[in-house]
């Protein structure tokens, strides 16, 4: 039924399925910061037998939301935090960038960062983590495969045993 109506609708161009490409060139972050953000998100939600943050476009989602939906304070938190991460990563690993570390090193580094005393860095980490989770759980992959989202369910059942179904 949905398909039957779909053809009648004229969707605005941005309403075609959202992809990382549509947000490329965000003015907020430099190329280095972008790749650090992408690796951060991927460390928080890595690729396993199902897609991780990077392949689901989460880094671009984070930039889009921080850029368009959040205030300048959040934008600064993101930018400064990415700078701090790059800086600390190089210091603590003898010159390696965050992206240059392997998975275990990244995990250790982030856990240390989060355990540290610096409030600003903690805020940054909280921001990136919560947006990574949101980007992941609102992605088409998660919504259709895990959440079983359907535009047209056509029903409401008020009392279903938990043990049945999904």
């Amino acid at each position, binding site marked *: *039924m*949905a398909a039957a*109506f*779909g053809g*009648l*609708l*004229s*969707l*605005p161009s*941005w*309403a*075609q*399925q*959202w992809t990382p490409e*549509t947000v490329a060139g965000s003015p907020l972050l430099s190329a280095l910061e972008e790749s650090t953000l992408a690796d951060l998100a991927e*460390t*928080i*939600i*890595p690729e*396993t037998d*199902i897609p*991780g943050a990077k392949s689901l476009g989460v880094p671009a*989602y984070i930039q*889009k*939301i921080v850029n*368009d*939906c*959040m*205030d300048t304070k959040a934008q600064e938190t993101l930018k400064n935090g990415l700078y701090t991460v790059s800086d600390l990563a190089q210091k603590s690993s003898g010159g390696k960038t965050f992206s240059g570390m392997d*998975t275990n090193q990244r*995990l250790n580094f*982030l*856990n240390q960062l989060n355990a540290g005393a610096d409030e600003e860095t903690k805020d940054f980490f909280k921001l990136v*983590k919560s947006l990574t*989770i949101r980007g*992941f*759980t*609102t*992605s*088409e992959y*998660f*919504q259709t495969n*895990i959440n079983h*989202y359907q*535009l*047209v*369910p*056509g*029903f*409401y*059942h*008020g*009392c*279903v*045993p*938990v*043990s049945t*179904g999904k």
Partner: protein
Amino acid sequence: MTILESTAANQYDAIVVGSGISGGWAAKELTKHGLRTLVLERGRDVKHVTDYPTGMMSPWEFEHRTQLPLEIKEANPIVSKCYAFYEGSTHFFVKDAEHPYVQEKPFDWIRGYQVGGKSLLWARQTQRWSDFDFEGPARDGFAVDWPIRYADIAPWYSYVEKFAGISGNKDGLPNLPDGEFQKPHEMNCVEDYFQKQIASKYKDRNVIQGRCAHLTEPKDIHFQQGRAQCQHRTICERGCPFGGYFSSNASTIPWAAKTGKMTLRPHSVVHSIIYDEKKGKATGVRVIDANTKKMTEYYARIIFVNAAALNTNLVLLNSTSNRFPNGLGNDSGVLGKYVAFHNYRATISAEYDGFLDMKTEGRRPNSPYIPRFRNVHKQETNFLRGYAAGFNAGRGTYTNQDGIGADLKKNLMNPSWGGWHVGSHMMGETIPKENSTVQLDPNKKDPFGIPQLAINMFYDDNDEKMIKDFHEQFTEMYTAAGFKNIRTRDSKQAPGLDIHEMGGVRMGKDPKTSMLNKWNQLHACKNVFVTDGASMTSTSTQNPSLTYMALTARAVDYAVKEMKKQNL
């Protein structure tokens, strides 16, 4: 503006101002009787299905996954407060800067200016009013007596319900008359449990399923409209391609168009109604083209003003002449006074730890309702009138979000069921007062050169007492049902967000104290009818739009009969 295009081409049998819920009905009923009808709508045209750009989008297809960009929020502090305003629906709401008004007291005016008006956005709750509502002012001594009773409007409720398609249960309650219902939506375990608890503990309180304008069992008349069964998508405020809920766009406007008698003119801002002193009646309207700003006059034998409550006040206030220097039909001086609204400030939530082996599936565009139980049969509290309430129970999922990496991901993929939570919000009747007003601002003009509306509506002591009582009574009811962690809240929101503003052109028996007679006809200018919220003498606790529809159909029926008798 000097040379008016006042040719025969501008002559109609009837003019309808506004194409929203009430204007759509006026158009449908007038054209049904063969009247050549001009429908004037200030906003753009919105065609059913083709003009619902977000109607078939999944959440991840939105640029910001339905979240509002900060720029839009900051540019629209008023409309952003409305719960239904989000990335998927912004195109159907009036933006703050485009149509300014004056807040003498804080008032969040939520509007939809387009063909269909707010019928695209509403939450579709359609409860009939009862004699306890129509007798309210006379019994409790406020405003003026309504010139009608439930029996006057009951057949018209049936008439509009059958066409619009309303779902609900026949509950047999005197304070909430039953209607023509299609099958009701389902209640869930906890709602059902609460219903039984309340029924066993109180003889005068009921938890029922909400009555709402959704096709749960479409009939022939709905298929003829091109509408189909509601698919429970719960994204109605984007426009429903199935016509699953009632909107002017899916129902009355195309129906009127099919008669060949309707001329729909979007981008037409009605400036005022023309009164002819020699003829002693209104002869037409002045319209400003929203694009060219050019003024044109259109003429008709009768005029229905359905611009939504406050805009209808504005149009009448702006219609001045030697005969009516203070606004059309305003001999009584009450035009723009006694405006009122619904009190939606208070909410109460809680948790329930039963039924942990049960959950819900799917979505439901409706929720249960608790009809007014305070002061119904007699005055019994320290405040006047009462409140109804929405109620709903639901069960969400919970995920552990600790840590990072593969473990976190695994947790996110395996949410567990949280407990049941319940919530209610009050819908209180506010009392229309003489000093609760809308007026034309003497200095400020809108972008069309029309005076801005200055709004002066406010909560009073009666409302504060009612909020307290709602919290107390619902705390008691929740406690009796064994709900835990009860939390009461007063949003302190300004009037307006309820989107049930009413009055200013009230009905009444006496032309000295009211604007309209029992047929929604201006006492002092008989060929002008007002059948939207402006005509309400008092506000009741039920959602109002179904009543606007019924009053409109009834008034058209009367107007047509009067025209045949050459009285109009």
